[in-house]
């Protein structure tokens, strides 16, 4: 798990530089500071379980086992990218690992995740679907319809809210009536659980419990993971809507050093192993950059492919 967290951090840390060098374009959103949520949640899932992601999706893909080479190639719009260059950051998907796609529409994943859960239920496949979404997305209309359906049909669905306190400039406490997103679960008669999103093991435990409920046929769970977006919403965000002072306590709670220290302290990991792992991640990232840049551009006529099956 630590490795994946470090890999996410390393991957998303490249973004500003890649923009500056005009190697990537469009919008992409770094999940730096939120790695524990993605990794903890996916660690509690089976390999064939489904996830849906958001505009801030790199971390989710990596956490579910995605390939950073193909991710990077997609960001660079190349032929070997996950979407052959058609999607870019906000549309990375890997159906082979149950990753049903990032989404450029806030709230766009609710229906897809619930539909995958319904499909799993109808097919009796024993799969569970987990929907990542933000504190901003919980106010989107689609949340309501899906939460209600999931409730009445007891869908094997985990609604995982990454409450990073902001939706662009919108503060959760100002935008969410009732203050706490977790309260919304009760309205639909299913459990809502709050968890420390900076603690990867806590996230994993909460999702594992929700996973059990889902498999037992007891229906959906809302898990609200309190976390924080360490960087701007996207590259270029001036962040005038928040102060350094309010950020500081969150930045101090960085989930990666925290998890690393605890693994070291509890003897699960040795310092040398940790260093080797970090080096390995650096190598993987360098390889991804190389892979992506070596990948050919798509041919213009490919733009006419993949519209219809």
């Amino acid at each position: 798990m630590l490795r994946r967290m470090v890999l996410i951090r390393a991957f998303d840390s490249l973004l500003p530089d890649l923009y500056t060098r005009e190697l990537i374009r469009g919008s992409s959103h770094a999940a730096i500071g939120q790695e524990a949520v993605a990794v903890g949640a996916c660690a509690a899932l089976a390999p064939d379980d489904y996830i849906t992601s958001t505009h801030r999706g790199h971390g989710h893909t990596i956490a579910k086992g995605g390939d950073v080479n193909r991710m990077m190639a997609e960001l660079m719009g190349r032929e070997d990218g996950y979407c052959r260059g058609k999607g870019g950051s906000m549309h990375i998907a890997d159906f082979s690992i149950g990753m049903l796609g990032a989404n450029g529409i806030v709230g766009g994943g609710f229906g897809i995740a619930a539909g995958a859960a319904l499909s799993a239920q109808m097919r009796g496949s024993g799969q569970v679907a987990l929907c990542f979404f933000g504190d901003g997305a919980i106010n989107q209309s689609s949340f309501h319809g899906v939460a209600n359906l999931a409730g009445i049909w007891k869908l094997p669905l985990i609604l995982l809210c990454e409450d990073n306190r902001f939706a662009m400039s919108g503060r959760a406490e100002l935008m969410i009536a009732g203050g706490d997103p977790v309260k919304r679960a009760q309205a639909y008669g299913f459990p809502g659980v709050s968890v420390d999103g900076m603690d990867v093991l806590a996230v994993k435990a909460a999702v594992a419990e929700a996973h059990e409920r889902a498999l037992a046929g007891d229906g959906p769970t809302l898990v609200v993971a309190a976390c924080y977006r360490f960087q701007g919403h996207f590259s270029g965000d001036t962040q005038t809507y928040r102060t350094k002072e309010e950020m500081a306590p969150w930045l101090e709670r960085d989930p990666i050093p925290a998890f690393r220290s605890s693994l070291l302290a509890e003897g699960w990991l040795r310092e040398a192993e940790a260093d080797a792992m970090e080096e390995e991640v650096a190598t993987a990232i360098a390889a991804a950059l190389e892979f992506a840049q070596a990948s050919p551009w798509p041919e213009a006529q490919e733009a006419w492919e993949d519209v219809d099956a």
Partner: protein
Amino acid sequence: MPEMTYSEALNLALREEMRRDPAVFVMGEDVAVWGDRGGVFGVTRGLAEEFGPERVRDTPINEESIVGVAVGAALTGMRPVVEIMYSDFLTLTMEPLVNQAAKLRYMFGGQARVPLVVRTNLGASGGKAAQHSQSLETWMMHVPGLKVAMPSTPADARALLRTAIRDDNPVVFFEHKLLYFQRGEVPEQEESLEFGRAAVRREGRHATVVAAQAMLSKVLEVARRLASEGIDLEVIDPRTLVPFDIETVVESVRKTNRLLICHEATERGGWAAEIAMQVGELAFDHLDAPVARVCGANVPVPYSTPLEAAVVPGEAAIEQGLRALLAGARWGPAEIG
């Protein structure tokens, strides 16, 4: 060949496909328990009994989630056929339909398939007024990644719905309120009807008319009337708007040299213009007169009988449009007001 209503023919197609493929299921408001079980227009009648509540699902009133959830199910091995009670309520489903269903395969570089059918109905009928009478098929035609069907007869309804369900792409399937209880012959055998094949409903040589569904029967009636004067109309029913069988229309125009397109949807920005444009591109030199249209007025559909009759093209308006076309003069519904 047995006779049945359009609604029964649709029901038959659903039944056949659900028997054939366990991945096919039906979902929507009041599709299972309503009436004698099955939809305001009876299309899903009896399906809940035969296939059970798992595969014939009554949903809460939330069109957005009906389509949204269907997209997720379609991506993961199911073949949902959802019902939106009136096409006016498609307005609530545009996000999952247009941003998700239509685009996921493309955005994901071909990884996904979205075998989804959204059944709904269009058209004015008996004073349902502005929020239950819209004909929104042109919107869908303008969205790459969606196919659009609009069957005009019971036989086509059954065959096209069958094709739609077997298609691996999202299909918006427009039925027409006024057709549900009209009867017609439907072959015993299951028949396939490929998308993109128009039907020539009547052959003629003086002008070509393209029309579907409720407009088609009016056009055919006018054609019968004009035939007595020696005017021979060729009448083409497109069956599907995406893909559209432009070849059949162009071939006809090469013969008749005149074209009128008639749809109930609002004239401005409606699909008549798209067909006219394509015919202009492909057969300009064969046109003896500008392509004409007789379409729904550029106003919402009103409730009261005389008002509704004024804005939905009737036989008189169609005949007037045709006579003008044959005479070479211009005619537009704005002038009948």
